[in-house]
């Protein structure tokens, strides 16, 4: 459904994308996962025909992004990173406008967005500017879906949205996926990777890995431990100072660190105890996508 071939793009001196190639099959949720500035938005804008890549090309449903941009634009749905609907228009007016732009009507395609829209329908006369973050996302998704696109591109749809709404939003994406719609979604939240059929870990304009979330985790090699203290920053510093760890970083309320050898773990534990840092937890854990990301980021890419 989406095919990307050797795309590179730069803004002046800054290289935003370096030789990216991948493919997304029909009916998949493809997650672009990476921190801010990794190149997610640039890639999405190239695929939605909004900017031209310096090098390489891409095809959406067989249509080339540069030459056939007009055709592509009438067949895709796009939801930019920032809420970009008209805040002084009501929910209903926004929907009607986008329906009209695509030459359809709300009634005609009501069934397509029913699941999402009915959650905000009771407020349909409220101005978009007065909606909560979660409701805005639902409206934006409804507007992006109103013309029955086969592919939708969502740029960080859950950024700045409360955890409950985030969960709901992913549930909606799953429903769309089951209807055969291809979804390319970017997110800085690593925990959302599990909801995707396939993910690309993107960092500094490059893909660190593309695979199903399960496979990415199964490829994880080092031994991963987590520790917790009342002074995590000091703990992190000491773990790094100990010299037996490959990498150590903060992860939520824990310090995660990796070792190659079981013996090193005990050496680290003793080392920390000498520093008089109280340890509340110290155990081996299974890696998450974030740990894989950290590991891939530090290891040289093949």
């Amino acid at each position, binding site marked *: 459904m989406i095919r990307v071939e050797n795309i590179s793009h730069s803004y002046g001196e800054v290289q935003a994308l370096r030789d990216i190639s991948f493919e997304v099959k029909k009916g998949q949720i493809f997650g672009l996962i990476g921190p801010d500035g990794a190149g997610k938005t640039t890639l999405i*804008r190239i695929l*939605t*025909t*909004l*900017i*031209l890549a310096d090098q390489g090309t891409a095809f959406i449903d067989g249509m080339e992004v540069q030459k056939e*941009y*007009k055709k592509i*634009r*009438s067949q*895709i749905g*796009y939801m*930019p990173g*920032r*809420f*970009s*609907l*008209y*805040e*002084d*228009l009501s929910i209903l*007016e926004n929907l*009607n*406008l*986008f329906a*009209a*732009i*695509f*030459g359809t009507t709300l009634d005609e395609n009501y069934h397509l967005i029913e699941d999402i829209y009915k959650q905000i329908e009771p407020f349909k006369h409220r101005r978009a500017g007065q909606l909560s973050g979660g409701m805005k996302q639902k409206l934006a998704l409804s*507007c992006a879906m109103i013309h029955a696109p086969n592919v939708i591109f969502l740029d960080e749809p859950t950024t700045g949205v409360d955890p409950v709404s985030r969960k709901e939003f992913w549930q909606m994406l799953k429903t769309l996926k089951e209807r055969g719609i291809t979804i390319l979604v970017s997110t800085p939240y690593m925990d959302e990777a599990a909801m995707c059929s396939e993910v690309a870990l993107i960092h500094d304009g490059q893909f660190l890995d593309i695979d199903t979330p399960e496979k990415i985790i199964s490829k994880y090699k080092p031994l991963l431990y987590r520790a917790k203290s009342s002074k995590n920053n000091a703990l992190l510093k000491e773990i790094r100072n100990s010299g037996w760890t490959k990498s150590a970083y903060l992860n939520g309320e824990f310090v995660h660190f990796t070792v190659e050898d079981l013996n090193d773990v005990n050496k680290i534990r003793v080392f920390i105890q000498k520093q008089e840092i109280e340890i509340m937890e110290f155990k081996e854990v299974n890696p998450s996508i974030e740990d894989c990301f950290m590991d891939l980021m530090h290891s040289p890419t093949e």
Partner: protein
Amino acid sequence: MKRFNAFVLKEFYHIMRDWQTLLILIGMPVAQILLFGFAISNEIREVSISFVDQDNSRYSREIRQKIDASNYFKEGVEIYDTQEVESYFRKGEIKMAIVVPEGFAEQLVNEGNGQLQVIIDASDPNTASLLSNYIQAIVQSYLDEFNRGAKPPFFIEVRSELVYNPELKGAYLFVPGTISVIMMLISAMMTSISITREKELGTMEVLLATPMSPVQVVLAKVVPYLLLAFFNAVVVLLMGYFIFDVPVNGSVPLLLAEMLLFIVTSLALGIFISSITSSQQVALMISLMGLMLPTILLSGFIFPVENMPLPLQVISNIVPAKWFLLIIKGIMIKGQGIAFFWKETLILLGFTLFFVVLSIKKFKIRLS
């Protein structure tokens, strides 16, 4: 077409919902016309003067009556000593004092010439020279009556006939001027701000990813402002006609057509501005400095173009309002037909075409 209509409707929503801006847009022309009409006026009407009659003769009393009988002056405080005049000027109670010196009548009768002294507050030089002219005219007409029957030895009378605006009304100047300012303001400034707002808010990005072309987006945006500007221009025209007796001597349909042309020129300018910047603030600054100021100062609205230094005269040629003012004054005041200003009309058309083509070239089908 349905798509276009929905978009125009959306623009109307934007304008209607921002009621503060709407109020300013509709209220401003009315306020401007009333300001120009009543407050900023250099017409002479009921100016306070004092008559210092030290002669108290038949002639001095007759002159005084003659002056009082005109609508231009009204007598303020009574002053008997010329020394006091200045203090009343300072207090701003009077603008002019007419002093008839002692022995005025005697000299007039015996020697055939009398001398009146007129002291004028010239802190506003334009008004001062007008006052001086008026008083000379009144005294001259008194002298004419006085001399009737007698034959002066030698006499040339200069009779000026003021055509088109015999009463020298300021309204003849500011009604066309205000129309051009209003149309420039609403069409160019509001359009450029409204287009750049879409860029700033990111809605342009969403629109670009739809089958709607940027040209369609901009055209749909322009429609409501065209109507609004036209409505305002007609309001100003009606106010001029009914409140300040400014006539439309020429053809009304022609006038409306030329106004429409100027609105389109302004819209093209607004679109052009929005194509070179993506910030509302910058668009506002360019509109104010680059369009509004020249429209007010260089178009001949306030200062006659012929009196400007040569470089400014040259610059005034690229101010569309200059050409529009020539056209609209020609129609309204002189009652001219298209034969007299087809050149100016062509120039406006040229401006419009130039900016439309330039903007279309700069229109982007993609971001940045």
